[in-house]
């Protein structure tokens, strides 16, 4: 059995469970993002565009690209948090999986592959809806799905590693309240970072969602002007997220191994 075969078994198990549970994820995966798009993009956007008519893209388009990355982060982070805590502490099914030829690392890799599939699906649906809103141009927006998936997966692997060190979900709630939500708001999702004092811009530069938002935006909107994005080259964003994914994956596999096989 190769690594990929074992990952496929995990994906198959997740898929069987998802057939039963997908309804519960509809609100967070599809409805909330579209609400954000409607409220911010259409509602607030009308106000923004009226006040400042010289933006290189409409505000709706600006927000739609930001939300692709930010929603990927939300989905990836959730996937690295609560199902992992359930596998270790609540339902403990990870302890059963490792009595088969599967190792803890196989669980981590399999869940990452599953995360890629699910993110690609969720983001495709969002992109299509945003396209129907007239927010995005399909031809370039579709190219921005892989970078958005990368953003989500970087969070999924890193937070899987974090969750594997935790005893209960209190710290997960704290993580979402004090890390994920601020990132969602202050990473350039809803406004260009140049609107913030320089000190806060620098904080944003070292955080992951900023790189996800910039990468998605620069690829989805090739004509976007320097008033709305930084001049940081694409490869820097890409490298940041790739390194975060790789480090997250290695740490998650190691920590989960020690946790499941003491």
């Amino acid at each position, binding site marked *: *059995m190769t690594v990929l*075969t074992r990952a496929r*078994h995990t994906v*198959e*198990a997740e898929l*069987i*469970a998802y057939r*039963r*549970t997908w309804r519960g994820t509809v609100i967070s995966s599809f409805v909330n993002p579209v609400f954000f798009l409607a409220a911010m993009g259409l509602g607030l956007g009308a106000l923004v565009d009226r006040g400042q008519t010289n933006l290189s893209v409409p505000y709706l388009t600006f927000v739609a690209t930001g939300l692709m990355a930010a929603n990927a982060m939300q989905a990836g982070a959730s996937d690295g948090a609560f199902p992992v805590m359930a596998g270790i502490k609540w*339902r*403990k*099914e990870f*302890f*059963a*999986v*490792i*009595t*088969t*030829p*599967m*190792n803890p690392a196989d669980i981590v890799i399999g869940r990452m592959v599953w995360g890629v599939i699910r993110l690609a699906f969720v983001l495709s649906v969002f992109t299509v809806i945003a396209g129907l809103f007239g927010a995005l141009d399909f031809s370039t927006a579709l190219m921005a799905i892989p970078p958005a998936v990368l953003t989500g997966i970087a969070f999924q692997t890193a937070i899987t590693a974090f969750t594997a060190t935790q005893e209960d979900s209190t710290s997960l709630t704290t993580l979402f309240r004090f890390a994920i939500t601020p990132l969602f708001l202050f990473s350039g999702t809803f406004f260009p970072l140049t609107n913030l004092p320089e000190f806060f811009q620098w904080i944003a530069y070292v955080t992951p969602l900023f790189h996800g938002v910039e990468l998605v935006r620069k690829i989805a909107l090739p004509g976007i002007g320097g008033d709305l994005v930084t001049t940081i080259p694409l490869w820097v964003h890409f490298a940041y997220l790739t390194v975060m994914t790789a480090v997250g994956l290695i740490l998650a596999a190691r920590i989960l191994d020690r946790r*499941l*096989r*003491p």
Partner: protein
Amino acid sequence: MPENLVEARGLTKTFGSFTAVDAIDFDIRKGEAFGFLGPNGAGKTSTMRMISTVSPVTDGKLTVFGMDPATQGREIRRRIGVVPQEDNLDLELTVAENLYVYGRYHDMPRATIRERIDELLDFAQLGDRRKNQVEALSGGMKRRLTIARALINDPDLVILDEPTTGLDPQARHLLWDRLYRLKRQGVTLIITTHYMDEAEQLCDRLVVMDQGKIAAEGSPAELIRRYSTREVIELRFQEGEQDDAILRLDGLADSSEVLADRVLLYTDDADETQRALHARDINPEQVLVRRSTLEDVFLKLTGRRLID
């Protein structure tokens, strides 16, 4: 010569400064039901986890099917089934899906798994529950499903950690019956338990574990013969009278154990001992004569009871 499926020499497991398993030796032969009997915290589960290759050996030597758990974990796990102390079924899946997914983890072809699921649901008496959500099953049914799941890969060795803890008597007997069947099919069983009746019912051979060490080894009958007498008289006294009575019991039996609520007299002839009690004018409130059990063996070996 019976083949040894598991061999342990000086097997040790430590967690920080705590020694859970303290240099134990044992052999488990092909086709037998081997038990680890002992109180909670004796090191049984740690030993099971090392055999199932999900806990690294700290020191000593352990082989399973002649293989090294440290380097051949996957190959070993391919041939074993594990029933953990706590049910850890996937509650989001149905009964049949739980089995299917584990078959896939064992890399079995889908068609083979489907045939196997039919057999196993039959075996576990869950045939009419195939499409039920696991959450709705009773404790006994969940346990049987966990056992069925452990059998999906047709294992040569099944490891059961406290298989009937928390079940009502009827569910326990049904489970024991299923385990007998497995044994008859030639599957080697390793069972941990703190129930002496379970150990006596199921195990061909067992070790008594206490504080990480093996206190004794043998068949249930051998152990009783070696460490206890044929019969036991249990005496219960009126409130406050036990201490006085104990002073007058000297020489009445081969040995005695004083517990908080009763006194146990170990003797090969209970009638004789009872006559002697009367002769000394010792009149307990209640007298119970019974055969020796593994509980008595444990008491004799450690000075403590199995379940407190």
